[in-house]
């Protein structure tokens, strides 16, 4: 089977999976079917009791399904002994679960050691992983208790990646660290994922985290009922039902802004003139756009600054006017949420989109609203 075929085949496939715990009246997961494409990061979100962690643990058989089948990398998960299946699946949990009595080096090297790698190869891999997750190589000789929560969580990710498993399962990995560290770890995961392209199943109760990290989001309801499975933009634009809409929260529109980029909206030219333009040209440009200010670019298209129309009084040319620096600039890839923030905090009530030093166009609140249509 070629790599090409792999990308078209789900790395993980759940079919009609049911889990009823002994003594429980209701199933924790009932009839869940879900495909996770290879190389995708899929977030499982939902309120407590929705079976998201149970679902995750069924993938590596920490919990055995009552009914249904789960295929991992194209084969029934029961084809292998549980411990062999698990060695192909990295696992990261909220409490990290590092071995307190082993140094970071031995913690990271745990699975390679199980797989019988030689010492030299394990040491090399540890050094590589420590760098990959952004830790100082000095930590390798320390014990987990000597590390901060954020560092421990990075070690947890390094350990999960140690034997280069194709699949990573992450169970609320960032909910125990403070918000600043959490944001950084999320950003690092995105950077890491761009490099390693693992198939990741990520459990979280934080819808913002899911929307930020996931290629696709599975919204689960109590009892493991799949309410919607879609990419973040679609989820926000077209929630399947009341439950999903409510789970996404009142600020659904604002959350969508985080997923649309400046380049995705129709930009306007704006009241922009060249440095050599006359005062009359500048007035005309401002009037045309109904604004009381105008921007100035040079012949190469670089944004020089802006001035009030009133500053043109007594000036013959735009070149005579003192300009104020244009701080309200964004790039084509800036999310609309940030663009909006720039707009409402800038005096011109607009954000200039600058691509590689060149002025591209202007975004106002109207364009932002238009971008969500």
């Amino acid at each position, binding site marked *: 089977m070629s790599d090409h075929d792999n990308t078209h085949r789900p790395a993980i496939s759940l079919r009609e999976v049911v889990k009823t715990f002994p003594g429980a009246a209701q199933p924790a997961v009932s009839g869940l079917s879900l495909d996770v494409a290879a190389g995708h990061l899929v977030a499982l979100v939902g309120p407590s009791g929705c079976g998201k962690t149970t679902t995750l643990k069924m993938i*590596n058989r*920490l919990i055995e399904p009552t009914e249904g089948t789960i295929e991992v990398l194209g084969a029934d998960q029961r084809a292998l002994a*549980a*411990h*062999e*299946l*698990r*060695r192909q*699946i990295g*696992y990261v*949990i909220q*409490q*990290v*679960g*590092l*071995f*307190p*009595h*082993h140094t970071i080096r031995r913690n990271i090297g*745990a*699975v390679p050691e*199980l797989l019988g790698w030689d010492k030299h190869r394990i040491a090399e891999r540890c050094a590589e992983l420590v760098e990959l997750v952004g830790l100082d190589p000095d930590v390798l000789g*320390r*014990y*987990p*208790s*000597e*590390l*901060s929560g954020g560092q421990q969580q990075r070690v947890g990710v390094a*350990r999960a990646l140690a034997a280069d498993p194709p699949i990573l*399962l992450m169970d609320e990995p960032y909910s125990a660290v403070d918000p600043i560290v959490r944001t950084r770890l999320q950003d690092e995961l995105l950077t890491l994922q761009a490099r390693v392209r693992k198939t990741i199943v990520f459990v979280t109760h934080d819808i913002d985290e899911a929307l930020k990290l996931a290629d696709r989001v599975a919204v689960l309801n109590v009892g493991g009922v799949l309410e919607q499975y879609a990419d973040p933009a679609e989820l926000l634009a077209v929630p399947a039902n009341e439950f999903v809409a409510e789970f996404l929260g009142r600020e659904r529109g604002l959350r969508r802004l985080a997923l649309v980029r400046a380049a995705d909206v129709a930009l306007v030219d704006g009241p922009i003139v060249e440095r050599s333009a006359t005062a009359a040209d500048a007035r005309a440009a401002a009037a045309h756009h109904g604004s009381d200010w105008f921007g100035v670019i040079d012949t190469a298209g670089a944004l020089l600054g802006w001035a009030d129309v009133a500053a043109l009084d007594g000036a013959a040319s735009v070149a005579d006017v003192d300009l104020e620096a244009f701080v309200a600039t964004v790039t084509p890839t800036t999310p609309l949420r940030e663009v909006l923030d720039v707009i409402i905090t800038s005096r011109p009530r607009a954000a200039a989109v600058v691509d590689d030093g060149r002025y591209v166009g202007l975004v106002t609140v109207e364009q932002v609203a238009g971008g969500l249509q």
Partner: protein
Amino acid sequence: MTLIAADRDSFVWWGWIADRPDEIWQRTVEHVQMTLVAVAVGLAISSVLALLAVRYRWTYTPITWVGSVLYTIPSLALFAVLIPITGLGFLTAQIALVSYTILVLVRSIVTGIDGVPPDAREAADAMGYSAGRRLLRVELPLAVPAIVTGIRIASVTVVGLVTVTALIGNGGYGAFIDDGLNRRFSTPIVLGATLSVALASLIDVALYALERALTPWRRRAVRSG
């Protein structure tokens, strides 16, 4: 009466002690042997029982119940029961000594394994550790502090009890005490008791040092940042 004196009417007759270096050494060897055998056998039996209790939780209550009964039987009563069966001597003494270690050791091993952080256990399972490997590489090493604490208590208890087994002819420091009681002579009683306390303290300190050597991860300070 003075404590330091040179004749046999005083509380401690130093000259009598100074004349017997060989006998003191021999009694020390006997006492240490009795203690080591009892603790080692006790640890072996307790390990099996503790692992049984960890694996099949329902067995824990009956195991500790039996352990408690053994622990509460007075040693003299136990000798009375055992002597007709196993005779006067080493085996009878060891049965009594080992019995006293079971409760403490089983409890300390089970407590130690129960105290392993559940997330470390879950991580081991999720990484593909087999149950045996998880026990040897994760659970037992993390249970070391509790287990060593149990061994310390058991050892100190056994060192004290070995002096009683001299009554059924097993030597050790108890032989001095027995001799002193028979002859109404205080010097060997004081000698036996003092050496017994000293040995118990020495073993306790040595085991504490062993525990520290086995658990370097517990000593490093927690840093932040």
